[in-house]
């Protein structure tokens, strides 16, 4: 477990460092994830080490968003004044994005004849 936690933190650190050093446009943790994925493909032993801490962190992923969510209390004034545009923008954009992503991917799967992309609803 300790080896796995250390690996996760070191990959994040490496990601952040590379992003800063080369002025890359992507976030450090995302680069860290890509680097770890590459390592897992190359070295089976890294899979065993990171499995348990990954499961622990991802098992309650939504907990990690709670502190940011509580920040809503700081913005009550703006949210009070602009609640309608904000609420409509969030709802419209969330629903449109869900549908746009799903339909684009399904259409591409069909065009490319990758089959088994969708088992129902045709």
């Amino acid at each position, binding site marked *: 477990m300790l080896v796995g936690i250390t690996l996760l933190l070191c990959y994040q650190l490496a990601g952040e460092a590379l992003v800063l050093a080369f002025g890359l446009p992507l976030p450090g943790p995302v680069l860290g994830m890509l680097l770890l994925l590459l390592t897992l493909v190359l070295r089976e032993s890294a899979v065993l080490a990171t499995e348990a801490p*990954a499961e622990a962190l991802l098992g309650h992923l939504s907990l990690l968003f*709670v502190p940011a*969510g509580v920040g809503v209390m700081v913005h009550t004034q*703006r949210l009070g004044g602009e609640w309608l*545009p*904000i609420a409509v923008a969030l709802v419209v954009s969330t629903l449109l994005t869900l549908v746009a*992503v799903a339909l684009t991917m399904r259409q591409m799967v069909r065009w490319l004849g990758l089959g088994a992309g969708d088992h129902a609803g045709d």
Partner: protein
Amino acid sequence: MPVTDLGRIWVYLAASPLLWLSVTLLAYLLAHALYRRTGENPLLNPVAVAVALLIAVLVATDTAYATYFEGAQFVHFLLGPATVALAVPLYRQRGRLRRLWLPIAAAVVVGVGVAAVSAMVSAHLLGASVETMLSLAPKSVTAPVAMGISEKIGGLPSLTAVLVVATGILGAVTGTRLLGWCGVRDDAIRGIAMGVTSHGIGTARAFQVSPTMGAFSGLGMALSAFATALLVPWLVRMLGLGG
């Protein structure tokens, strides 16, 4: 115990990170238990309920958000390692990933564009300020990434964090049902849609549906963080906003 002692204990504890860290975990556990108890009713999303509980406690005790965050930052910090940890479920899906990379890439680019433009345009039509519009633009990606982008394009990072959480909850609550109406039942496709739209909160929901949906949601979340960082600043310039 005399009241003055209680007061002194409160003053001491309220200033230490331990108190608000513990309260955050307790609120989440309570919200999670409620969610389980009600047969995982998506309307009782654990993040939404935990946030509401915590705000009630903070208001009742007259505690500032900054004080609260001193303790809660330890939970917030774990978003970084959790993002890195997404490599593990992705690795397990590497076979399907290799097969589906092109449809996934196309879906992510479309999704990132639709998420940012539809949010900014609908907010603009209803008279939102430019600052609010810019804070909305990166709301579909995971919090640390979205806050970074928001700062770069002239939004308010802390407002973006709130909008990120709200988007996550909305997608998690409506996602599976909406996609069902559209006739989309494949777990890989549903997962990508959930992750691109609602980042980690959507991914948490996706993992409850199936490990495959969770893994693809994690992939969608990671790729859209990457694509949003590249595309949103450019989209904002195209719309003639900030910079």
